């Protein structure tokens, strides 16, 4: 789950990482009040879960409360890379002497947290990694050893920070960031830029924070940060029904079990000359009720012209899937052609259930490739 800048900064504050005084607002009037409370010049920042806010005009300096209100009015409603701005973060404006970059990533490759630091902050870090790789210091942490002070020294001396006070502040921030990373089950904690003010104070001017969905049950206060409004309504419905749903751009609705098989199904649909409109992954369990839910989600997408059930039962039982299809057809009128391919656990029984029901728009197919062809044909007909 990705957090907004202001949410990440709330977590930073909780762990003692210095950030500027700020307020979360959603209207120009609130922006004015916030600027009054904060005092002095403020920055009005669009809160969107995408990059490129600055270039898109989503971050503006305001000299006084009236200006803040005006800037907020200008930013609210902007569309930035497909995200409409409805939330703002108003924070005390900072003078910037230096811009650094600091992050901790969950590195699945090495199976260790990865610390990254460079004094070349404030820009796209991939660019630094490419054009000036030596400037980006990387260091893994053994998860059982945990963060040790020497890790900070390796980053600080490796990146060439020479000011003693800066060194101390960065080391302290890094220790706290690691604590936040582990303490919140984060997949990413990024500070870009980590600024040094002309007075020598080091603080986080932005935040990028991603928390492991599988660990949210341990952090109800973070789980509550999820922005249900911002999500696609169908995706929200899917989430509510605990179905993995992804919107795509073609015409075949896909219902499979297991991410690998679903991905393979997309590929085979493409080989058959079609394109997927969306897909639902029944995942592990997949009882009849789950099938009904998934069908409900899929059929609400008006782009869907045909549906392809591609099931290879393991933990999922094909008889349950067949029952789910029948149950769904009883509860809602689905006239789209439904191509069904069942194999694996209790496949015989599943096929028999469908055969016995003999429903006109349900077409059994024996193989994945045949099923894909039939679904594409049905969608484009």
């Amino acid at each position, binding site marked *: 789950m990705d957090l907004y800048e202001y949410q990440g900064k709330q977590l930073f504050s909780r762990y003692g990482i210095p950030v500027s005084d700020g307020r979360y607002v959603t209207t120009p009037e609130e922006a004015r009040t916030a600027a009054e409370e904060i005092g002095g010049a403020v920055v009005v920042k669009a809160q969107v879960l995408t990059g490129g806010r600055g270039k898109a005009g989503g971050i503006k300096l305001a000299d006084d409360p009236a200006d803040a209100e005006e800037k907020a009015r200008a930013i609210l409603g902007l569309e930035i890379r497909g995200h409409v701005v409805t939330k703002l973060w108003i924070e005390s404006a900072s003078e910037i002497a230096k811009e650094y970059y600091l992050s901790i990533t*969950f590195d699945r490759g090495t199976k*260790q947290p990865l610390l990254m630091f460079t004094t070349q902050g404030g820009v796209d870090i991939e660019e630094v990694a490419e054009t000036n790789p030596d400037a980006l210091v990387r260091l893994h942490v053994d998860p059982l050893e945990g963060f040790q002070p020497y890790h900070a020294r390796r980053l600080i001396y490796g990146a060439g920070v020479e000011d003693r006070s800066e060194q101390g502040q960065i080391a302290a921030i890094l220790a706290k960031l690691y604590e936040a990373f582990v303490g919140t089950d984060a997949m990413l904690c990024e500070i870009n830029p980590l600024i040094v003010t002309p007075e020598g104070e080091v603080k986080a001017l932005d935040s990028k924070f991603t928390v492991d969905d599988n660990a949210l049950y341990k952090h109800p206060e973070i789980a509550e940060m999820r922005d249900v409004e911002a999500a696609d309504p169908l995706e929200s419905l899917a989430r509510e029904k605990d179905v993995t749903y992804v919107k795509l751009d073609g015409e075949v609705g896909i219902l499979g079990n297991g991410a690998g098989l679903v*991905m*393979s199904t997309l590929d085979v*649909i493409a080989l058959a000359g079609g394109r997927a409109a969306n897909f639902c992954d029944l995942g592990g369990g997949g009882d009849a009720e789950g099938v009904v839910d998934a069908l409900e989600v899929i059929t609400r997408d008006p782009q869907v012209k045909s549906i392809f059930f591609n*099931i290879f039962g393991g933990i999922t039982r094909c008889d349950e899937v067949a029952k789910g299809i029948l149950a769904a057809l009883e509860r809602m009128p689905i006239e789209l052609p439904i191509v069904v391919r069942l194999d694996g656990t209790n496949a015989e029984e599943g096929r028999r259930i469908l055969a016995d029901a003999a429903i006109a728009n349900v077409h059994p197919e024996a193989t994945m490739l045949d099923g894909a062809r039939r679904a594409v044909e049905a969608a484009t007909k």
Partner: protein
Amino acid sequence: MAIIVDQDTKLVVQGLTGSEGSFHGLRNKRYGTRVVAGVTPGKGGQDVEGVPVFDTVVDAVEETGANTTMVFVPARFAADAIYEAVDAGIATVICIAEGLPAHEMLRVYTYIRPRGVTMLGPNCPGALSPGKANVGIIPAEIFTEGSIGLVSRSGTLTYQIGHELTQMGLGNSTIVGIGGDPVVGSSFIDILERFEADPQTEYVVMVGEIGGDEEEKAAAFIEAKMSKPVVAYIAGFEAPPGKTMGHAGAIISGSSGTAQGKKEALEAKGIRVGTSPTEAAQLAAEVARG
């Protein structure tokens, strides 16, 4: 021979008294796997169709000599279950449970690795050595015994490919699902290494997918260390960039980890890659038939 599970496997099922645990545990037993014990705290002394249940894994090990565990407990209890098994001396852990908090699995991995424990999963279908033992949820009836080692990150895709191989009359030494969670106990390389050492295995089919760089690493390993032929299949050519595909492992970030990139990396090392499960099976058949 075969790898990971065989006639010497003595299986304890953690979570045997749950509905999924008993369904698949008993199915494994009916297949011929030596399912010697179950563990459910508070149900010690009971049995599930003749399989004795213990309160703790250490009791199960002491009483039955169990050497392998299948973890069928809810995700939030799975890390604890794995520690319990490993600390009780279990050498092979097969974790069907999915969705473990990634940080927990990070610590589990780092803990068990130097102890020489073999682990599949989390979020894996298990391992099946046809004719010998089946541990997990793989539908054994669609596979036959043979000389192809099959290793995959995905459960159902494994069945699909295995099914295609069977249709072509090709059997398997062992079918191994390494699991789809972000951190899993074994890499492709870990399993390829064991197939290379296994006398029964003559060829290997590797089933990869988008995300990460395990397939790229495996390609380098195959070229450098393997004498046995390997063919591959990669899923996700049509996967939308930047979307989580269900496996947290299958996130495309930037240009790295794409199916196309993996295919090219494999082919650069002389490994043939099918673009559909059917094609991958055909390539395997070509190799197997010389």
